[in-house]
């Protein structure tokens, strides 16, 4: 058996509290987690349990109220705004339940976005974006805008966009929430394939127990902002 891989992600006593009026609400409390590189981790829990908050913190979209996040040896929780933007650009790709594609841009142009912010020149980024769209099976839809694409196709575009700058980590926030069950299975299958083939670390928030049990290798259950259970179904 191989020695256990060093953790890509480590959180220590991670907390996030929001101020709602005068009341402090703890969205996440004292979450300590280690995710080895190449994992496919599913985070489950009821709505309001803190799943999305955890993902936003790991993705560098939000900053913790307390505790630390370390990704690939870099202390994400201590980064300033510009460093966080770079982290999102290069280190952590994200996909969302509502796809979050820019409606006015074609599939190809959406995939180009992270490359534009990375300063990649036009020819090179067109080439890379087209290649990524091919990988997710959408080469023939490259010049269509999101409203012309099906939900599954839109999420594939989002996956291609998340991978544009070659991150080691992909964060998926309820990626199948707006999809039918067949398409949902296809999308999670696509993620699992990327996890296997590229050793891409995937953290997926989902409450679809069936899909989670079928594809994820580790499952963490959150309740009221705390980890209440961790298991490895495989």
């Amino acid at each position, binding site marked *: 058996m191989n020695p256990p891989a060093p953790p890509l992600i480590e959180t220590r006593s991670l907390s996030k509290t929001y101020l709602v009026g005068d009341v402090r609400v703890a969205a996440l409390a004292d979450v300590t987690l280690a995710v080895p590189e190449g994992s496919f981790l599913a985070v489950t829990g009821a709505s309001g349990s803190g799943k999305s908050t955890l993902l*936003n913190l790991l*993705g560098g*979209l*939000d900053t913790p109220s307390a505790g630390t996040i370390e990704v690939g040896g870099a202390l994400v929780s201590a980064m300033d*705004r*510009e460093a966080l*933007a*770079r982290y*999102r*650009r*290069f280190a952590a790709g*994200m996909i*969302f339940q509502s796809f*979050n*594609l*820019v409606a*006015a841009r074609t599939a190809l142009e959406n995939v180009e*976005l*992270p490359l*534009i*912010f*990375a*300063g990649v*020149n036009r020819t090179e980024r067109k080439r890379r974006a087209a290649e990524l769209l091919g990988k997710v099976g959408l080469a023939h839809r490259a010049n269509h805008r999101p409203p012309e694409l099906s939900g599954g196709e839109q999420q594939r575009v989002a996956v291609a*966009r*998340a991978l*544009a*700058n070659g991150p080691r980590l992909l964060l998926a926030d309820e990626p199948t929430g707006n999809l039918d069950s067949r398409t949902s299975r296809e999308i999670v299958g696509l993620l699992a394939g990327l996890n296997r083939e590229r050793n891409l670390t995937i953290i997926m928030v989902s409450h679809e127990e069936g899909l989670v049990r079928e594809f994820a290798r580790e499952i963490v259950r959150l309740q009221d902002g705390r980890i209440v259970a961790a298991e490895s179904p495989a």
Partner: protein
Amino acid sequence: MRFADAVEFALGSLRKRRLRTFLTASGVMIGIGALVSMISFGKGMQKNVTDAFKASDLLSTLVVMPGGAEPPAGDPDRQRPRAKVPARPDVVLDDQAVAAIAKIPGVLRAYPDISFPAMVGYEGAEELRLIQVVPAAVAASRSMKITWGRAYASDEEAGVVVSRSLLRRMGTSDPASAVGKTIRITSVSVDLGRLATLDLGSILSGTASPLAQESYDFPILGVTDVAPFGGEANLTESGVLIPPGPAGRIKRLPITSIWDLFRMKGGRLGYSAVTVKLGSLGDLGAVRSKVHDMGYATFALADQFDEITRAFYVMDMVLAAVGMIAIIVAALGIVNTMVMSILERFREIGIMKAVGAGDRDIRRIFFFESGAIGFAGGAAGCVLGWVTSLVINRVVNFYLARQGMPFVNYFAFPFWIFLGAVGFSLLVSLVSGIYPARRASRVDPVVALRHD
């Protein structure tokens, strides 16, 4: 993010909101158009005055004046401003002095200002004028602008040059037709024979006068056109120029106005002023200090010209300030449009941040958008201002031409006006973009992505 990409982003989102972009840029266009036409009007006026000064040779002219009693303020016979360096009260400005001044290096010529009041008669009309005695060399110089006929050939030729405006006042609309016709000059002089027959009492009480009138006929040799500021000798005032020779044969009083009597020193009157033509404006200082050393006061239009230039500077500032009001309104329009744009693109900004756009990238995109509005509005404003000025110029000249005024360009467009206007518009739009761009860059992606 590359510069070209940021520009493309900005133009892309402006294209998407065509109507609003057009309206906002129109605001800038009107503001810049107003500013451009205001400033070009100021510059046009300045150019007209400057050109007129240069064309009339007035700048290289120095007027030398003797000391002594000055006429009271408001006296119409004496409109010349007071000299800066006062003259010595004891020196007289006579022929000797004129000859001495003419010898100063840098002086082209010096001639006394001699004028006398006379009744001018032409084709039945009569008008009281000051007749100006001007040497042939001066009358023939380019500053006189003799448009019809010619100047007198020598100081002795019996003939006069009259101004077009005088002819118009006397009922002649075609100046060319006046050339060759006769003008009658009637002057007043002391009749010595009559003086001998009158008793002092009746002269002093005003019941009898020793004065007599005598008339002289001269052919009109030439007619001068309306020069905006007169010529070397102030033609718009006198209207009749006569060479020294024939002028000397006209019997007349030795004074132009009663005030001249108070200037007399030891029975000598001298000239009230001597006009000095300089070879170049650069000689002004040296010639002037020599003349001051001789004890005379001087007046140079070049001094006035500096003041006029300063006045135009103030006028430019006032016009620009009026134009600025429109610019400020346009700038507020840009701010409004850009802030609206943030609200509309709230989610898009969140998406861009989620996929790795930094604060600086977002700032840049918004900055370039407002810059593009300013640039387009500024360029269009230049065209608008230019076209507006052309139209106004046509209309004003159309009406003035009916009153016999020559065509004048009231607007000037030096190249820098356009460059400056576009640059200024760009600057204003970028400043207007600072707040929206900052605000866009501070959008919290978590909030924006939750937003529908």
